[in-house]
């Protein structure tokens, strides 16, 4: 690189700063491609429930891919426990795995795979992949056990452990671990594909070191981290300073029928934000709790999304402070279970922060996302003659809420995914599992109304031809207090409903956070809530109302009743009647 240095600072070339940042981003993306394209579970391939990143020797985040946004700010918490365990005992070619929620992780199914990258005999970087395993053992299904009370019930706890030592895979360790999980083939493949990911990361980093030298990279990385910090602080200054409280309840705490509440106070100062979660409900003796690391990640992600900031690195994280004492449902203490940290609790944390920020930045905030309701069913696969687990992502469309200027997305994905998931393919799903999909369509009149409506909810009917070995459903959002709130006059949706229809014709609701049984021929149906609306429905553009009617997403009756638009099935509008009706509805 021949560009000249900045005046007054002979060591930093401002052009090289951009170039090195670009290159680190590109390496993180190459790692992600390996995970996405070679995984054995739809969790990576379709839901993209993983993230890849590069950190410096001290665990400061330098670059990361943008797959599972919930992890956007989670990686920095994972390196310190690994360093504490192995300080001075790491060699070239080592790869460490860890999933212990109390070692900077979220929940047991999220496996972290870390590779130290050496130059001149010293660790210079960490290449890290974090991704959700198809199973992690334990008494539940795929790691989800609504009756579990501690982290021991949830599955195998892996403290920081060398899976690969100096390039040699530690088969004894691997076998010991794989013997504890119920889908060893899939889990083995997905851990190895994460090892492939960190190898790709190492390859890219060594190439970069060879080209620029380590000191040069470190110096320039420092400069772009400062630039990111500056840019994040500038964006935070667009929020009026003040204290903004927000809270959100889950259906219940699973142990009892008491709603479980997250409470946050967001204090916006001059270019900085402090989140105080200390008034949240105490930790529950069931799996609803979150870890400190993941609560922080979700809170920061919510601000990133609201301020449209996509680059996560150590600099962008510097403006955030936390008051999050242990013992609450958003900072559980060992050995509490934290399985739903990345699911229902993440959604509640995000909604609490969104509701707090709404009055401060009404033009930027989005109405919250819908709540995930997710059945997982294990069964004996008739062709493979062994246990398989049907993780069915058709249940996970999760329409998002409206925001100023835009309707919500029909397949926004749960809050922590921010639309980065990908809906599965119905043919691949039927080829993979013994099921038949009877219907997968958006339902009429399901969206929360608003000037900018929420995404439409789906109706999903799927028939199972093989009985379950065990089946579980987790989630929230079946109670009125747990649905996402519409903003500024936008309506909240009706709660979701999950039912099972027996071959005999009986149909019953499957209660949330419980085990249930599937018989051959049963049809499971989700009537999914739509996203909440933003703004008064009477202000909605008449053309948008007409288009929803023509597209089959809004009934003529609801068009009049909620939106005050008098329109027929062919889309012909009676403008005079519409003006009159809207006036009348505004009065009432």
């Amino acid at each position, binding site marked *: 690189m021949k560009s000249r240095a900045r005046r007054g600072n002979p060591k930093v070339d401002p052009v090289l700063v951009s170039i090195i940042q670009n290159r680190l981003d590109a390496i993180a993306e190459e790692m992600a491609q390996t995970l996405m394209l070679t995984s054995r579970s739809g969790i990576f391939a379709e839901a993209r429930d993983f993230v890849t990143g590069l950190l410096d020797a001290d665990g400061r985040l330098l670059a990361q891919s943008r797959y599972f946004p919930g992890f956007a700010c989670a990686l920095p918490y994972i390196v310190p426990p690994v360093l504490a365990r192995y300080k001075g005992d790491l060699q070239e070619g080592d790869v460490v795995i860890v999933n212990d929620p109390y070692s900077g992780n979220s929940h047991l199914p999220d496996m972290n795979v870390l590779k130290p990258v050496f130059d001149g005999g010293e660790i210079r970087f960490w290449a890290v992949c974090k991704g959700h395993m198809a199973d992690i053992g334990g008494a539940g299904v795929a790691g989800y056990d609504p009756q579990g009370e501690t982290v021991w019930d949830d599955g195998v706890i892996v403290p920081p452990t060398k899976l690969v030592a100096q390039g040699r895979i530690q088969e004894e360790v691997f076998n010991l671990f794989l013997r504890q999980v119920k889908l060893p083939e899939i889990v083995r493949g997905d851990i190895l594909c994460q090892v492939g990911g960190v190898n790709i990361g190492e390859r890219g980093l060594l190439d970069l070191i060879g080209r620029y030298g380590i000191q040069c990279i470190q110096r320039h990385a420092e400069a772009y981290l400062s630039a990111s910090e500056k840019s994040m602080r500038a*964006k935070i200054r667009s929020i009026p300073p003040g204290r903004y409280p927000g809270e959100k309840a889950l259906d219940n705490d699973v142990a009892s029928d008491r709603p479980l509440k997250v409470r946050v106070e967001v204090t916006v100062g001059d270019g900085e934000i402090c989140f105080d979660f200390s008034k949240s409900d105490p930790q529950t003796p069931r799996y609803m709790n979150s870890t400190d690391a993941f609560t922080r990640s979700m809170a920061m992600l919510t601000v990133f999304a609201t301020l449209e900031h996509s680059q996560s690195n150590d600099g962008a994280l510097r403006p955030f402070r936390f008051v999050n004492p242990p013992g609450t449902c958003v900072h559980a203490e060992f050995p509490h279970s934290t399985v739903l940290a990345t699911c229902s609790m993440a959604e509640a944390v995000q909604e609490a922060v969104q509701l707090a920020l709404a009055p401060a930045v009404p033009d930027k905030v989005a109405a919250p996302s819908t709540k995930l309701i997710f059945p997982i069913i294990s069964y004996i696969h008739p062709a493979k003659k062994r246990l398989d687990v049907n993780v069915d992502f058709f249940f996970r469309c999760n329409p998002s809420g409206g925001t100023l200027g835009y309707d919500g997305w029909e397949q926004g994905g749960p809050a922590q995914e921010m639309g980065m998931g990908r809906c599965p393919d119905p043919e691949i799903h039927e080829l993979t599992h013994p099921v038949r999909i009877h219907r997968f369509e958006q339902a009429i009149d399901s969206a929360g109304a608003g000037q900018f409506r929420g995404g439409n909810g789906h109706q999903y009917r799927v028939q199972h031809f093989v009985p379950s070995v065990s089946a579980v459903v987790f989630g929230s959002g079946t109670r009125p207090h747990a649905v996402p709130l519409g903003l500024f006059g936008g309506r909240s949706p009706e709660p979701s409903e999950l039912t099972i229809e027996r071959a005999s014709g009986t149909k019953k609701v499957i209660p949330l956070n419980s085990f249930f049984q599937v018989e051959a021929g049963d049809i499971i149906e989700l009537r999914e809530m739509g996203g909440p609306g933003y703004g008064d429905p009477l202000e909605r553009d008449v053309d948008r109302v007409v288009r929803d009617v023509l*597209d*089959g997403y809004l009934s003529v009756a609801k068009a009049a009743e909620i939106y005050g638009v008098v329109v027929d099935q062919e889309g012909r509008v009676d403008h005079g009647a519409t003006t009159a009706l809207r006036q009348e509805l505004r009065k009432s």
Partner: protein
Amino acid sequence: MQWILGIDVGGTFTDFLEIEATGSVEILKTPTTPQRPAEGVLAGLNKLASRHSVTLEHYLSQVTLIVHGTTITTNAIITRNFAKTAYLTTKGFRDTLNSRRGIKRNAFTAKEAPPEPIVPQSLVRTVEERVDRDGKIVIPLNEEGVRAAAEHFREQHVEAIAVNYMFSFLHPAHERKTREILEKELPGIFVTISSEVLPQVRMYERGSTTVFNACVGPLLRTYICDLQRQLESSAFRGRFLTMQSNGGVMSPEVVKEFAANTLLSGPASGPVAASYFARRHKLRDLVTIDMGGTSLDACLVRDGRASITNQSEVAEYALALPSLDIHSIGAGGGSIASVDAGGMLKVGPESAGAVPGPAAYGSGGTKPTVTDANLGLGYLNPDYFLGGERRLNLDLANEAITAEVARPMGLNVVEAARGIIAVVNAQMANGVRQVSIARGFDPRDAVLVAAGGAGPLHACGIAEELGMQLILVPRTSSVLCSTGMLVTDLRHDMVRFASLRLDEPEHTVSALNELRRELLAHGDKVLAEEHVPAGRRRFQFTCDMQFEGQFNVLETEVAILADGPIRPKQLPTLAQTFINHHERVYGYTLGDSVIEIQSVRLSAIGVTDDPPFRNIAMGTRSAKAAVKAHRRAWFGKKALVTTVYESSRLRAGNEISGPAIVEAATTTIKVDPQWNLKVDPIGSYLMWEKGTALNRLLARFSRQATSSSHQGGRGAP
């Protein structure tokens, strides 16, 4: 006299490349006539005829081959000027098409609208019918339902219909019956069914591809019929072929049914032409870059063949037909440089476009672009841009760079301009990594082929960034696409769903051989219909493979299938081929797992003759005769007096030592101080790093074609 013609119908201009049997070359540009594109083509043909002082009839009677590429389908999508199209699918799956699997561009904002649908949701209808995963009919087709849908489509004045049923690739009877009913109910309407367009698994991707085929089908059919009729009525008796997205060409009969094959054909002939010029030096592993005003197209060519992908997007909808794996990034001459809130220098993806264009155009643009930086550093000639058609204003360029980049960053104007070039070069290098390293190929083992108006200016910088040692700038680099059309082969890609496991060797071998026989018969038939002699038919097999349980497949070439029926003892070779490919691309393997073959693909190729390009005049080693000026240009920290050469006066064998600039009417080649340039016999330029011998580099990078390598299809010319 006899001629062959390459005609590239672009959005603004139609390019003609005419090659006479003796090898002399004519180049012509005429305006495209978007309303009736055939007229623009005829107008150009008339001009060419008058250049030879003959009538159009006389001229066309002597033309033996016209290969033409058209972006009219692509432009129809961009301008949303396509047939009003309906979509008919299986009951229960109404939203599969327009949900687009929920893909959102950016996670970190809620303020994003989905793309405007190709088929409005109100023109989506469903029909009761169902085939299951084993290809069995579990719900018979409700023919009344099809008629009811036809009635709705008639009322809505639909012009084209795409039909896509669940698992139709396993049992196409329902789709075929549906087409029969629709054609009867709605005579003259263009109906296309997914089991013919793309018989493979994945409902959204197959449906979206079928929709594309429907919505541009009527338009392309009209255009091709129109042009064919006019050519024939003007005494044209030669072959008339059309460029496809996969880098091959096809006959009019095939085009009329498979219009979607042309959607990404615009840049597809570039890498093919690049391979042709590289073959002259037996160079077979290339990275091609084509840098224009708004974007850079990068493509990997391995063993003389450009990589192919089955996962493209057009207007944010999936197009799953094979097309050249061209990676586009928003970095071109018009890309805008800016400094963000954190003080970081960014270039692109925003572009100043043609209007207002770079600040130096003086058309009101105040934002500095890559072209402004190139001008500021002395690489571009303000009086000879686009052959002198446009004058560039150096003061305006420097003002824009100073205001928008230099001042905010505390740099002087030259440092800022150099920064813009360094950043855009690094971004382009990342684009090249996407098509090479990310596909398991080290770019240092390849030759960089640089084309387009801006490509040869940045070639040395990109090559240095990637450690590439040899650069080729092809002759006719500015009309590279029309050249590509004349060197490409007839090519048809076919796919069959297989679902085979290598741990069931007997079944797999017999099923593979059956699919092989069926695909070969089909490929042979299509080529025979295109009058390709048997001796010129070539066949390449690839398989979409995965380790058991993986969700995505990796397309892997299986050369042994092309050689003959597979034998059971060859299965380990097949497995190892896949394992090696997987290791290279993804950094690990699952070697002890069962390997599955999801689909088998065949490319049926009809090898055509190479055009008889004539060599340019030989010269001595010295290029003195071509010197046209000297000017100061910035290299590193110094402004060096740099020799400027006129490209049309260069002779074969001339050598130039950097720093130097070679100016042609439509492109500028910058030779950095550490680089040399040599003119090859056909008029292409080779550039290599000083301190190495060109012959040694050529020997290192060149190799003989392996037996299975085609697409170009031929050995070195």
